[in-house]
């Protein structure tokens, strides 16, 4: 006797659900409350940024279309683009731009070349000796620029200064056009080099030592490892240092120029920042200073965007 039958598919077992609609969304104020904390945390920083950066920026922009001599009692008159045309007509601006370029180029050895060399060489100084060494290189950064300037003034003195005795020439460093610019660059560089070394050291520490080890086993000499592995991997750090140099060199020189040369002799150390300050606070031409400030701001934004794009291109996110 046979029994009749058929194969049936085994069904996927799952709990029975009555009506599985989408999960209910929490009420709107609950969602708002949940989304709020990050913005609350950001608020203090945003408020400070607005009060101390964006508002003055807007005011500067506004001021650049006015004429005012900084006296609270004197009137502020609207002059349209007058300040800008005056600024672009004077030869001062071009000359200051050129000197700024010289300062930037002159700073690069201190912010890039020396730090990379020192960073690469001091990698092999380990432990406590390494820490002491880096602290010594960093020390000038801790000296207040104005105090440093005072000491340098003695050192550079044409009659009693140590520098002239060592160099063996009667150069009046701070009162001759060429030497004054050199002195400003070197003193600023002396100030900043320790910071740059620190940045390079941090960049080098961030490179996985396995790369250099692998390259060594692959047969590369020490110089080849540096050239083919370490420097390319350090390039984002170097791009950052170049960016800092381009954007901030002229600012770093400011306290030294103001204490040592006041932009002289005959304007030979006046770069764009000193020029801006000079317009505003020596010539009491606030509108002209503001116009210069706006122009430089726009110029630096363009420059910085270009450099940031470049450094993004250079970075190799290794994971």
């Amino acid at each position, binding site marked *: 006797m046979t029994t009749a039958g058929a194969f049936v598919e085994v069904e996927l077992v799952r709990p029975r659900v009555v009506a599985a609609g989408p999960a209910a969304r929490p009420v709107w104020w609950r969602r708002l409350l949940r989304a709020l904390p990050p913005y609350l945390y950001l608020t203090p920083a945003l408020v400070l940024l607005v009060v101390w950066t964006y508002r003055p920026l807007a005011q500067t922009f506004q001021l650049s279309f006015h004429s005012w001599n900084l006296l609270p009692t004197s009137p502020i008159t609207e002059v349209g683009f007058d300040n800008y045309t005056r600024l672009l007509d004077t030869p001062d601006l071009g000359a200051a731009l050129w000197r700024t370029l010289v300062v930037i180029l002159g700073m690069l050895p201190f912010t890039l070349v020396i730090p990379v060399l020192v960073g690469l060489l001091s990698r092999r100084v380990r432990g406590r000796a390494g820490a002491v060494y880096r602290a010594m290189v960093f020390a000038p950064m801790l000296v207040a620029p104005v105090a440093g300037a005072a000491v340098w003034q003695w050192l550079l003195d044409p009659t009693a200064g140590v520098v002239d005795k060592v160099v063996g020439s009667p150069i009046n460093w701070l009162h001759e056009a060429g030497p004054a610019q050199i002195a400003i660059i070197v003193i600023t560089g002396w100030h900043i080099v320790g910071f740059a070394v620190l940045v390079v050291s941090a960049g080098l520490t961030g490179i*996985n030592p*396995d*790369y250099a*080890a*692998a*390259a*060594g*086993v*692959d*047969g*590369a*000499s020490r110089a*080849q490892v540096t050239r*083919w*592995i370490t420097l*390319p*991997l350090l390039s984002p750090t170097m791009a950052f240092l170049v960016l800092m140099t381009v954007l901030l060199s002229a600012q770093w020189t400011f306290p030294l120029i103001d204490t040592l040369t006041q932009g002289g002799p005959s304007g030979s150390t006046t770069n764009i920042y000193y020029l801006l300050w000079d317009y505003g606070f020596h010539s009491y031409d606030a509108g002209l200073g503001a116009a210069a400030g706006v122009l430089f701001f726009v110029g630096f934004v363009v420059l910085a965007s270009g450099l940031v794009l470049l450094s993004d291109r250079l970075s*190799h*996110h*290794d*994971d």
Partner: protein
Amino acid sequence: MSRIHLQGLTRRFGGVTAVDDIWLDVADGEFLVLLGPSGCGKSTLLRMIAGLLAPTDGRVLLDEADITHLPARERDLAIVFQSYALYPHLSVARNIGFPLRARRWSRDEIQAKVAEVAAVLDLSELVARKPKELSGGQRQRVALARALVRDPGAFLMDEPLSNLDAKLRSSTRAEISGLHRRLGATVVYVTHDQVEAMTMATRIVLLDKGRLEQVGTPEEVYDRPESTFVAGFLGSPPMNLLTAEVVPDGDALRVRAADLDLPLGITADTPPRPVALGVRPEHLRLTTPDAAGIRGVVRTVENLGSEEVAHCVVGDERLCLRGARPLGLHAGDPVHLTAAPENLHLFDPGSGRRLAWQPVPSFSHHPPPLPHPAPSPI
């Protein structure tokens, strides 16, 4: 291809001895696996062979030449790092060609050789990519290709498969084994994965706390572990180790513990001696209550798919039993087990070294000094 000799290699980091007096000969064409738990000094040992770390003591010889103080680049060894260490700023082709570039090959020669090696490892499509655009398995193959491109004296590999998922791991394992057979290369391979070690090695070196515990073929280390460490490291679950005592009973020796009484298959008389008894989970057999040498209670049963592992309590010790599914055991059941004498391993409870039976000529008046530590391995 080359032989490597390690003579008393030692490395200390401050107070920590990471590698402790290792003597080892790696034969030409051998696939030697360094196996041990995390932190036992495998990487340290490999880095010393590669020349990336100076030994505190001892010597490294490559084909009889002392290379202890030779820098890494002059050693003619290739290393595959656990992290792969692919140069992130270079394309796959330039990564593979790097060792040749360092050897000042011409551009055309490099291109030809890279294409050849890339084809072998199925990387031809990927040569223009950067490492970050590759999957884990592809990176692993690029790292291998970079080692293969220059035909080194020996390959050193530090856990090259540990970043891969289970499936890719087993296929890459087969790939590396195949490469080793094709090239006849000498390979020193570090892993903490015993499956990798058992399947790939011609010989396994077991390390514990920087010391060498045993060297032998996969069969030797599995079937005749020379210490409780090796016994407890290999196998899954590893060998059961129980505190027991060897006692004479009539004219034969038996091993006894609470709820445990098994014959050792040795006809002799010797004073009682405490031992650590080892028996592999798969060598325990279920039997009738009368024939049982081991009586216990089942605590849990694990299902491994094709097999089951029963965790039992015997006396106050734990014991694992592994067998084809279904074992027919349930938690709480009494269990009756036995094991053949040839599957019992005895170890000294103090030193942990294996004990081997050594008959003494019968005219001796003294009872034989037994059991006796095994003669030193290899």
